[in-house]
């Protein structure tokens, strides 16, 4: 279980997160939705222990963040691809696997390569990969150690529709064993999440399942929720 209690964060005089309290439900996909600059990435970095929060408390399985050992249970994918371009796809997977201190069996590596359909290109240097291939490889690396939590910052940016469908299917399959926390600013993807957190002006403006949110605001798509929120202000 991930708990965020009264989290605030400021960079100098600028408030980036304002009094955020959230519980992230296990074995579900929780989507963090909001326009660019609303503080999504900062929230994720606080969750990972990469950024310090000024006030409040974050716990994962009752362990206070930041905690290095906790990272064993988390798979993280940043917005950028974060791959070694001068290594092959397979070498990238193996390197990060070793960072979790696990001897990953050949079978497991192979299964993951098959899952993201990179088996044929595993011996190619990543610098020769297409954008979509890099994204898939990044995704594969996040669940190499079968983490309990997956924290993905905009996982489907720059991916073609077919592959996007494919990835969402995989995410839903991962739900069985993991809790997923995903940021996005693409509204139609929001509908695929089980739970939604709408972020606006450094705080959580609305939360619930997509259907609940649509009903509360009496609108037919998520875009209109944001327009309504804008109007309220």
């Amino acid at each position: 279980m991930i708990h965020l209690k009264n989290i605030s964060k400021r960079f100098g005089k600028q408030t980036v997160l304002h009094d955020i309290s959230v519980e992230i439900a296990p074995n579900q996909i929780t989507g963090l939705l909001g326009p660019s600059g609303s503080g999504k990435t900062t929230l994720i970095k606080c969750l990972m222990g990469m950024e310090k929060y000024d006030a409040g408390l974050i716990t994962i399985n009752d362990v206070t963040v930041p905690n290095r050992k906790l990272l064993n249970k988390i798979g993280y994918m940043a917005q950028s691809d974060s791959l070694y371009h001068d290594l092959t796809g397979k070498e990238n997977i193996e390197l990060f696997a070793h960072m979790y201190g696990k001897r990953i069996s050949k079978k497991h590596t192979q299964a993951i390569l098959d899952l993201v359909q990179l088996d044929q290109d595993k011996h190619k240097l990543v610098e020769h990969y297409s954008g979509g291939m890099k994204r898939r490889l990044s995704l594969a690396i996040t669940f190499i150690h079968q983490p309990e939590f997956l924290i993905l910052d905009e996982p489907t940016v720059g991916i073609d529709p077919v592959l996007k469908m494919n990835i969402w299917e995989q995410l839903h399959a991962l739900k069985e064993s993991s809790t997923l926390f995903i940021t996005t600013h693409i509204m139609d993807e929001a509908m695929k999440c089980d739970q939604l957190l709408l972020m606006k002006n450094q705080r959580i403006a609305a939360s619930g399942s997509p259907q609940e949110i649509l009903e509360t605001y009496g609108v037919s798509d998520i875009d209109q929720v944001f327009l309504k929120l804008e109007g309220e202000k």
Partner: protein
Amino acid sequence: MRTLFIIKRICKQVLRDKRTLALLFLAPIFVITLLNYIFPDPDDEVTIATVHVDPDIISVLEENQVIVQEETDIDPKAYLEAGHANGVLEEKDGEWTLTIVNDNPINEGPILQKSTQAVMEHNINELVDHIDEAVTKMNEFSAGIEDVLTQLPPEMQPDLDTAPDLQTDTELGIEEEALTVDYVYGDDRYSFFNIINPILVSFFVFFFVFLIAGMAMLKERSSGTLEKLLSTPIRKSELVFGYLFGYGIFAVLQTAVIILFSIYILDMEVAGSIIDMFIINILLSFVALGLGLLLSTFVRSEFQMMQFIPLIIVPQIFFSGMLKIESMEEWLQWLAPFMPLYHAGNAMLDVVLKGFQLSEITASLLILVLFIVIFVTLNILGLRRYRKV
């Protein structure tokens, strides 16, 4: 364990990057070789044109391997500019004038030195001749007195030994060189290269390792892989040591290549032990690694990394032992101990030129170790920027 995999990864990356490999191994060899041939060889021929110069001086010059061209009526300036000789020596009423081009102070050294030596030798010889003459005259004089005395009546003859030991003392060592130069370290075959090469070896080790470590870490930061690595449970110290030893392997290899090349191909003479040279430079390369990794924290692009070269690297050359620290302004001297290259450069001079033993350079080595400890600690702390634990 994780450190080991980071090291393995760095080796793979460097070996695949042919340009970096070339920069590490070929560039220093290229520059050191160039320098070896750029500085004039002390055995090089020097030509001096002489105008009405005493034959004694000419013979001294020739003894010193100077090619002498005897001229009678020339314009020194035009003569030199035409490239007929390296210098023109004129004698007029016992005064000597040496004309040199002076467009390159390094080249003028041997001419000045050899001409001065010849003139000095000549003058000393002349002085000796004068003394000789004086002695002879005195002898004649005392002989004359004796003659006079013998003609006096015997009862008036004083009981004097009028011819003292003068005769025996007139044999001065005229044939020997007027000035013998003794060298505390090395000998007269030492060129400028011999003296600056040990420092250059250290400088290249420092410079190239600094550059490559800094650039690599910068790439790791900007590509997001550093953040990704720190999202795994790796310890910050494991990561820093992985970097240190991963690039350290190449730094050690580079040091070995530069040292062995200087000694066996360029004939650098080492008075001390080669192993001591290795110890100094390997420690220095780790200092450079630590510093490079650290400074990459403060830059956003390769260009900004380059900006550190005039700021961090170049000033260290001045303090590396090529120039005398003692003759600098006092407030500058104070800076020297803060420069890693000051300690390494001077330790290298001690080992290579003066033949110092390991026990005599321990202080410098300990300071280098201290630099490493400081930089490694700062690097580990610096990673807090990416992860708070």
